[in-house]
């Protein structure tokens, strides 16, 4: 655990995060300002966090913010890092991480598709990926109601309370 404490201290010194916590076993959460994300990522990569596990986003609709989450992993130390930064929900823009982690390309594309976050520098991010002819809000935003969308587009079977026979509802066939 000593290396874990060292890592925490070093990251604290280097990144000056807004908040830092350890949410789980061998896991560090670092909250930084959005404009320092790029630097933080390259610092962490050089610190040994060479694997980008996922880039994702959380919609904090009450605060009107998106929280971008980068999860990095160091195979040598066995520590996961959540690097988080909040950006404005109305104009969500972030600098791409593809120059540091090329693997981020499709994660960013996905975040763009599902949340509408723009990634400057990632040309591909704005293209559709999973969805085809999508005509509504980005679906993982909290103000998108999948039930309503589903109801309007895909009719369901009417399920009344009439049964073939009153008790048990057995089918004679």
């Amino acid at each position, binding site marked *: 655990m000593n290396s874990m404490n060292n890592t925490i201290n070093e990251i604290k010194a280097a990144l000056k995060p807004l908040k830092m916590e350890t949410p789980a076993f061998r896991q560090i959460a670092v909250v930084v300002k959005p404009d320092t994300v790029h630097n933080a990522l390259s610092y962490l990569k050089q610190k040994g966090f060479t694997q980008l596990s996922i880039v994702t986003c959380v919609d904090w609709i009450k605060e009107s913010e998106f929280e971008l989450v980068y999860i990095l992993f160091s195979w040598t130390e066995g520590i996961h890092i959540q690097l988080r930064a909040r950006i404005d929900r109305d104009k969500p823009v972030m600098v791409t991480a593809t120059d540091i982690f090329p693997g981020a390309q499709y994660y960013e594309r996905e975040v763009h598709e599902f949340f509408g976050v723009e990634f400057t520098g990632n040309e591909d991010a704005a293209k559709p990926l999973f969805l085809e002819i999508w005509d509504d809000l980005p679906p993982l935003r909290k103000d*998108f109601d999948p039930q309503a969308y*589903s109801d309007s587009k895909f009719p369901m*079977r009417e399920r009344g309370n009439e049964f073939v026979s009153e008790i048990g509802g057995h089918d004679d066939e």
Partner: protein
Amino acid sequence: MVLDEKDNRNVWEKIGDYFSANSIWMKWYCTGCGAIELPPTMTSRYDMERLGMGPMATPRQADVLLITGYLSTKTLRRVIYSYEQMNSPRFIVAFGSCTINGGIYYDSYATIGRLDKYLPVDLYIAGCMPRPEVVMNGFNELIKMIKKGQAKGWKHYQENYEWYKKNQLDSLGEVIIKDEFHE
């Protein structure tokens, strides 16, 4: 789907149906998670070939389209092309809950609710997923239906093409889309 149950086939059609029933080639298209139970059904443990069934590579060659579970809109478009490429008589067997009434994805923005709005379904199989025994029994049932001339979904599709097309367009926006690179 209301089907005419009266058997008005002539003797040639009856012979043809006998062959159709005993040699069913399925389209090798894993549309959903039910496809995970198809390999066991096909392979040594359950050996589907005993029923005269086998996988086929392209829709042209296939007789039956297995809809193995949920269909996202993106898949449904391809399923519709595939179905329309198949030669009559052609059949559709729907696996599991999702094809009947949306399954666990009933509130999903990406998957359809009921398949029979878009394509004529000849047979439903219960389960999530149906285990191989059930799949085999389903195929057996399909064979019996074809022998009796009851699997007439394809005729229904031809006769009610407009209705199906309308439903397809309502839900999918466009059915035939240009499948370009997303670049």
